[in-house]
């Protein structure tokens, strides 16, 4: 369960804005490159300083410590960082069923990070994030390096996870078809402002 609401939130490159990410629903964020989408996600996850209020359900961000907030607000960056040599070292526990849903074998726990393809990295980074049980998901182009079959797998996994755990999802993607497939609400950054893309909100 997790709804994220922002009041007069200020992130780099953007004018202050209000935004609601309802629990269990997926919101699309789009905008030209360099418009500050990634910076916005980083600020929402409290990875860098920001101003304004951010509420997770009934609690304001400042009542959490930085690590407590970040553990709940799961951020998936386009480029994932890996600090140890083997895949398994980065997980509290590796769920075999989840691995299978993204077409990864249980042996992938022993794989070396350096030998992963970019697609494997991306899928494993998503699983690493989910195994951390966040209450909100901020996804920065989570399928950018994937082939069509894996895009479908990732989309289905995120959708079922969202329904099952009632997490709010903010999904950054350029792909118009994907925007229509996965998103319920659509926001767009245009010249430093965050606007509801009302024409397509359904």
């Amino acid at each position, binding site marked *: 369960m997790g709804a994220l609401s922002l009041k007069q939130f200020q992130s780099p490159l953007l004018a202050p804005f209000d935004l609601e990410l309802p629990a269990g629903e997926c919101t699309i964020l789009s905008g030209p490159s360099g418009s500050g989408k990634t910076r916005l996600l980083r600020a929402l996850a409290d*990875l860098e300083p920001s101003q304004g209020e951010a509420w997770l359900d009934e609690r304001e961000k400042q009542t959490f410590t930085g690590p*407590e907030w970040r553990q709940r607000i799961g951020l998936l960056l386009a480029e994932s*960082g890996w*600090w140890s040599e083997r895949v398994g070292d980065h997980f509290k526990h590796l769920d075999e069923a989840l691995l299978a849903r993204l077409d990864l074998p249980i042996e992938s726990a022993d794989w070396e990070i350096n030998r992963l393809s970019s697609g494997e990295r991306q899928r494993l980074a998503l699983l690493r994030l989910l195994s951390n049980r966040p209450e909100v998901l901020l996804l920065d182009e989570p399928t950018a390096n994937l082939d069509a079959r894996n895009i479908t797998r990732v989309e289905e996994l995120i959708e079922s996870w969202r329904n099952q755990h009632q997490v709010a999802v903010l999904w950054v993607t350029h792909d118009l078809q994907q925007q229509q497939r996965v998103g319920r609400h659509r926001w767009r950054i245009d010249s430093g402002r965050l606007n509801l893309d009302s024409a397509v909100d359904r």
Partner: protein
Amino acid sequence: MTLIQLTPFDLSLASILVVALALLSHRLSLGIEGRLLIAALRTIVQLSLLGVVLKVLFIQSHPLLISALAIFMLLVAGYEVMARQQRHFLGIWGMGVGTLSMFISSFTVTILALTAIIQAHPWYSVQYLIPLLGMMLGNTMSGIAIALDNLTHNAWQQRQNIEARLILGHSWDAAIRDIRRTALRSGLIPIINAMAAAGVVSLPGMMTGQILAGAPPMEASKYQILIMMLIAAGTGFGATAAVWIGSKRLFDEREHLRLDRLSQPKS
């Protein structure tokens, strides 16, 4: 045995060797002849000045004058630590991290050695305090400079990995732990190597000096052992303090990684 006095002529002979090296550097276009000559000149001027200052302090050993010299040495060492880093901390922390760590380690270890081990009278007697402090500062300075440079360099290089851990809700302490360990190890390796090679490969400076001055070799050995232990402890504690303060400074109160607190690298 008495000390054979060196004349200015003797020193000129030795200096001619450095000038010859500078000429060679010029011929081979190594481009370091300028730096070499300036460093040599600094050695001559600084050590001559120190000789004069110590001569005055030997006659007029007022605690205030001794403290003033000690603090001056500490500040120069603090500046050196900052100057040796590719990316140093901005503002007061640039000199602060190294100076504070050296103050904590070098000063306490030196005072401990003077009061509890050597037991000179008075304990701040110039003849013991300044040489001891000088050796402590010189060595801890190197260790701390290497450790801090390693810390900030790796934090910059591995920012993605540090942030990956922060994103998952790890504390700043967990996120920087591996980098901190590597930094500390790199700061301690020179003194460990020096201790391992002492007496077999290298004849350490202080022992050489005492033997030249006519001290019995066994006494010189004992002093050298004492100094090596103090330097190892001082470097270790100093580098630990520096790396700890430095790594904490890399994060703010909400545990964001704040690489903007580091300077741009020198070109």
